[in-house]
């Protein structure tokens, strides 16, 4: 291998650096242009993606914790009748969790009374109700949103017209 290498040594000083070859102006290579354009587009997209990547990761991690908060909520609902120090404590834990989520920018919503919107809600059932047909009657699981983005849709029961 080593003997197949060509070694060229030449000495240059500052003086000889002056004679730079004149830039040959010819038609740009289309392949080069395409590669450059590709690179530029890729760079722009990665800039966009980078900006949203940390947000997305935060949303992903947070949503993994949401079922735990759901369960706390269920625990409180099941105990509606009785009061007691344990219940108070659980409520405090739940309030803490909700305020922490809010601090991270994740707001809980149920949208009861609002018209059903598949961008925010996932329908799990319908019920005859006095509410306007097509509106959310109850949320069986709350939704969470971050600024304008729905992190998790609310699971809702929707009113249907009385027969």
């Amino acid at each position, binding site marked *: 291998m080593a003997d*197949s290498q*060509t070694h060229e040594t030449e000495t240059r000083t500052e003086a000889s650096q002056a004679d730079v070859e004149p830039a040959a102006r010819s038609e740009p290579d289309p*392949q080069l242009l*395409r590669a450059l354009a*590709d690179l530029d587009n*890729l760079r722009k997209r990665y800039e966009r993606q980078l900006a949203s990547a940390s947000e997305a990761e935060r949303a992903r991690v947070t949503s993994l914790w949401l079922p735990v908060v759901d369960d706390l909520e269920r*625990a409180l609902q099941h105990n509606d009748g009785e009061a007691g120090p344990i219940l108070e404590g659980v409520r405090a834990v739940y309030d803490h969790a909700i305020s922490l989520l809010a601090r991270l920018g994740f707001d809980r919503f149920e949208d009861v009374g609002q018209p059903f919107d598949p961008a925010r809600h996932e*329908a799990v059932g319908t019920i005859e109700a006095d509410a306007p047909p097509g509106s959310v009657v109850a949320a069986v699981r709350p939704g969470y949103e971050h600024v304008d983005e729905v992190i998790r849709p609310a699971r809702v029961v929707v009113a249907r017209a009385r027969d």
Partner: protein
Amino acid sequence: MAKAVGIDLGTTNSVIATVEGGQPTVIPNAEGSRTTPSVVAFTEQGDRLVGQLARRQAILNPKGTITSVKRFIGRRYDEVETEIHTVAYDVVPGPDGAVRVKVHDKLYAPEEISAMILRKLADDAGKFLGERVTEAVITVPAYFNDAQRQATKDAGRIAGLDVLRIINEPTAAALAYGLDKKSSETVLVFDLGGGTFDVSILDVGDGVVEVRATAGDTHLGGDDFDRRLVDYLADEFQKENGIDLRKDPQALQRLFEAAEKAKVELSSVTQTQVNLPFITADANGPKHLVVTIMRSTFEQLTADLIERTMGPVQQAMADAKVTSADIDEVILVGGSTRIPAVQQLVRRLTGGKEPNMTVNPDEVVAVGAAIQAAIIKGEVKDVLLLDVTPLSLGVETLGGVSTKVIERNTTIPARRTEVFSTAEDNQSAVDVVVLQGERELAADNRVLGRFRLEGIRPAPRGVPQVEVTYDIDANGILNVSARDKDTGAEQRITISESSNLDKGEVERMVQDAERHRSEDARIREQVDARNELDAVAYQVERRLEELGDRVPSHERQRAEMLVADARQAVKENAPVDRMRSLSAELQQVYQSLVASRPADAGASPNGADQTAQPADDDDVIDADFTVS
């Protein structure tokens, strides 16, 4: 230029991918998911929804939510009468006995519904890529007949896409693994998706893929596995609590979600816990479902489902007239092939062959379609094939170590410049030894060339700045130049075959480095510690000289003693710890020598720390040339 994409138009989910810079990539939809449910909904308000949003409102609008339309595309009404009962929407006979979907008194051809799915995929991909998507390769099951293929093509056209080609799903999977490049092979593709099971035997070779046989089960998939787990959990709960959770829609939904999660987990761990507190309540209070499921339990529950895949596999092999010994490659497609028991069965049926599953099985078909699209567009050929440097390129520095200038696997053309300095006072020349390899010691690497840069003006060590530039062009030709920033004197060498090693040699060198890594790291550490100690001893010595009598004698004595110790340690190549502690002490002495007295005019402003640590401001790094 508009992008060509590959689309896996699935029964339950669809995926879109493209080739970019020679690499296939799956493109997420507007909701950020890499798969899009193949569902279209027409709401009573007159909206049309596609994908996840359509699925979310399905329960409100069963007649207006079209799922699994792939089961109807290109079929005649009388062919699909049994399928009609598996969907909630209305399927009616249309003109010439064709299938039509009836929604709110309007008739849609299945290809129109498929077109809406394709349109969403292409629109979302266009937004993501920042350019319109107009051309696509779409996949269909290998068993699709001409009418079904034509209808799929029409769906693409209705969606405004130029359908470059319709290709078979197993063919796409083989393309994703590059198997078309093999000379002559028999490939078995095992595709267990959400709701359908397909097995195909392919003949591949020299760029041609031929389907020799296919078989399957149009109603077997991951959903069936979920259902088994749900039933098991519900039965156990009922036995214990007397409550059937399946009668409570809310509880059932939680159960399905938990079952799917447990199924996925059991592919990587041997047991998992299903944890559903407050799943229901009776007079005695709330009830919780907390169950540990072993993988073995899951396997018992689903053993018959897995057995059901055996028949089609044997059928396809019989039809193709091959035995397990003839099969060269096995490819797994579909999320359910992640289930270990499925993989075991496939291994058993194919004579112990290790299946290919490095490409995500949910995406492999779309990836293959994208590759096909790129081949048709000539993009794969057109793309500038960018090479990488197979091995690192470095320069020999003080202590006989290799300091890397260009790391291995750097995409070329590439150009890197580092600034080095001298190791001795009044050093008039530096030797540049160009090294190739991953080892820490220069002697263990390949010497590509060497040259000497002379005429450096006399100066204390560390002061001269020699800029060394490594420049590899697209052809792998390496130009190394060294330039004295002070005088502008420059010297260069061209090495034409730096990347011309054969693959085995590269592999050997990389493995060598891997094997010697800890030993090399130790040597490197030793050399670095010695260089650092030597440098700081030098600085202290110089400082003492500069300050002369102004240093109190006790301080001078202590400093001189430390310098003597350091020299001794360097000479003896003392243990790293010893050298480091000496360095630290000398560093302290130096600091106090600098701090307590104003800097002497003759002292070089930055010469002091050049050799000790990289100076942030001028790129000087802590390595010096060997004395020439």
